[in-house]
């Protein structure tokens, strides 16, 4: 079986985080990660990106749009 390279880690990071790798591939990636500090950081960076993305700034429907939608919903039942 071919040795796991750093480029393979870069390619498979997302599949790894989705737990979508076959068990043998995952095991080899885990082995690589335990002995390659660079790839460990790469994984941390991906996790950091995902973490920041997951706490986005607040976003709200404008008041007038919300009012229009509520009255459209009300009217539909009457119509």
């Amino acid at each position, binding site marked *: 079986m071919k040795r796991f390279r750093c480029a393979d880690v870069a390619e498979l990071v997302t599949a790894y985080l989705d737990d979508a790798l076959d068990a043998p591939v995952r095991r080899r990636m885990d082995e690589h990660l335990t002995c390659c500090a*660079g790839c460990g950081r790469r994984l941390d960076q991906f996790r950091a990106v995902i973490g920041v993305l997951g706490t986005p700034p607040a976003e709200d429907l404008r008041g007038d*749009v919300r009012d229009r*939608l*509520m009255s459209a919903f009300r009217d*539909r039942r009457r119509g």
Partner: protein
Amino acid sequence: MAFAGGGPPPDDIVVEALRAGDEAMFASLLDAWSPGMLRLARAYVSTDDSAQEVVQDAWLAVVEGIDGFEGRSSVKTWVHRILVNTAKKRGARERRAIPWSSAFRPPVGPAADSARSPDGDGLPPGPWKDFSVLWPTPEDEALAAEVRGQIAAALAGLPARQRTVITLRDVEGCTSAEVCEILDISAANQRVLLHRARAWVRGRIEDYFETVGRPA
């Protein structure tokens, strides 16, 4: 108004309530899903007003369509499919209406740099720099705001499909199965789009830290 205990009740209850004209249920769905729908709409349209209109039109289609909803997907997936289709149409119309002056401006920003465009893997050739330790913690609000700004800019540089996938997965927390159903794509395709988008955003943040010269 929000749902007690997190998410909405089971779909059959939601659908029945909407069909019966339950305003509180409709209001709760509006408040729970509209923020994410606005973020998604931005993958296709350029202004806040357009995004608001896209979300409005999508909800109007939901109101019109609820009686015919057949339950082949979840309500959430159905609503988000309507949103994406509405946003795509609106985005296409906006691009046709683009003024001449901006149509002939040379490309600027990330898209101009084809070597590191989001269509590639966005990965630098050399070893990865260690900036993860500098990433914002809840105590460092100023840095968090800077990084958030960079991330918003990075998302804006993505092609619509990649931006939609990363928004659904990483911002809104959808599962990969939900994303595949909303966008009608395969699991493998979903993962490729997500991977490119994440690699692109990571690369932009790295560039930012290099530019501001924060110690690594």
